[in-house]
């Protein structure tokens, strides 16, 4: 396994790069112009956070890889994002339920990370946390409107929640990487974030009349490079231009 901090930064960066790419697929396809703009803005924010985390990963690694090398020249098994982030965008309800679950986790995680003993990591987390507060507000408002909206919007949002909820088991996945970084105060104990995340999520979902499904949670295979069939297709599209024209500038 690579240096723990590099591994950890790849997890943070890849979650946001892959989810940001999924959101960017809505550009030009939003349900209404204003929401199209909002989704593209959210995508840009997430890709911006990813670029900061990946750039730092490359610097810490010290082998000359920058954010572009990490984003465009790694293959599927080298990506460390959670599967939740790579699932196809689905309908608007699916996209928003996923954003909501992820944004709420990200809010608590980045808040904790902003107190990291690693100064650069802490500064990036603090910056990203500020924008994430807006993301949560946006996706929370949509939960209320879709869940407690029309019969059809409720049905679609509930179906999305049923499908997505088991994947949230990956949020708090921890291993040797986290353990090593926790010892020096670089990373927080993710298990401590589950209760506040759960409270945030359950509060909104209850108001939205959406029901959290029972059943087993899924394993976090993405954290060690085991992905769903969907990531390869996403990467093919995301990486094709960079790989066809190596080193291109514009």
């Amino acid at each position, binding site marked *: 396994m690579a240096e723990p901090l590099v591994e950890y930064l790849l997890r943070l960066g890849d979650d946001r790069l892959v989810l940001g790419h999924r959101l960017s697929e809505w550009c030009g396809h939003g*349900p*209404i*112009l*204003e929401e199209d*703009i*909002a989704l593209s*803005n959210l995508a840009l924010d997430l890709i911006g956070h990813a670029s900061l985390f990946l750039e730092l990963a490359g610097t810490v690694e010290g082998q000359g890889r920058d954010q572009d090398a990490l984003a465009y020249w790694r293959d599927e098994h080298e990506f460390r994002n959670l599967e939740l982030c790579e699932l196809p965008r689905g309908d608007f309800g699916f996209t928003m339920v996923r954003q909501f679950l992820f944004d709420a986790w990200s809010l608590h995680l980045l808040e904790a990370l902003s107190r990291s003993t690693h100064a650069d990591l802490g500064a990036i987390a603090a910056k990203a946390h500020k924008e994430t507060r807006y993301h949560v507000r946006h996706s929370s*408002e949509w939960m209320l409107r879709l869940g407690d909206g029309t019969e059809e919007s409720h049905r679609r949002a509930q179906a999305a929640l049923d499908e997505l909820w088991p994947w949230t088991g990956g949020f708090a996945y921890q291993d040797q990487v986290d353990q090593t970084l926790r010892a020096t105060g670089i990373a927080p104990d993710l298990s401590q974030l589950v209760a506040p995340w759960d409270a945030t999520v359950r509060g909104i979902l209850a108001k939205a009349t959406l029901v959290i499904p029972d059943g087993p949670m899924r394993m976090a295979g993405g954290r060690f490079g085991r992905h769903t069939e969907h990531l390869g297709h996403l990467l093919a599209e995301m990486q094709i231009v960079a790989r066809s024209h190596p080193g291109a500038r514009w």
Partner: protein
Amino acid sequence: MSQARDRWPLWEVFTQPKDGAPHEHAGSVHAPDAELALQNARDTYARRGEAVNIWVVPSEAISASTPEDVGPFFDPGNDKPYRHPQFYKGAKGG
């Protein structure tokens, strides 16, 4: 897109560029309610830090003068400038 557009009402957006400055008309957005109108306005008109505060107002709540009002409304008596509110200087937005 056109179907949703027909159902969502229009909101006029006013942004305040800095504390103490007056809100100025920035444009309009479609949204189902005030909270989402604020969010859409933020994404459309204030994402690059152009504002410290936003108002949104349902467009239908605005009463406007008509082009025919130009004469009686706006033809000023320029011989008596002291009658114009602008004659007396005060702090803008104060």
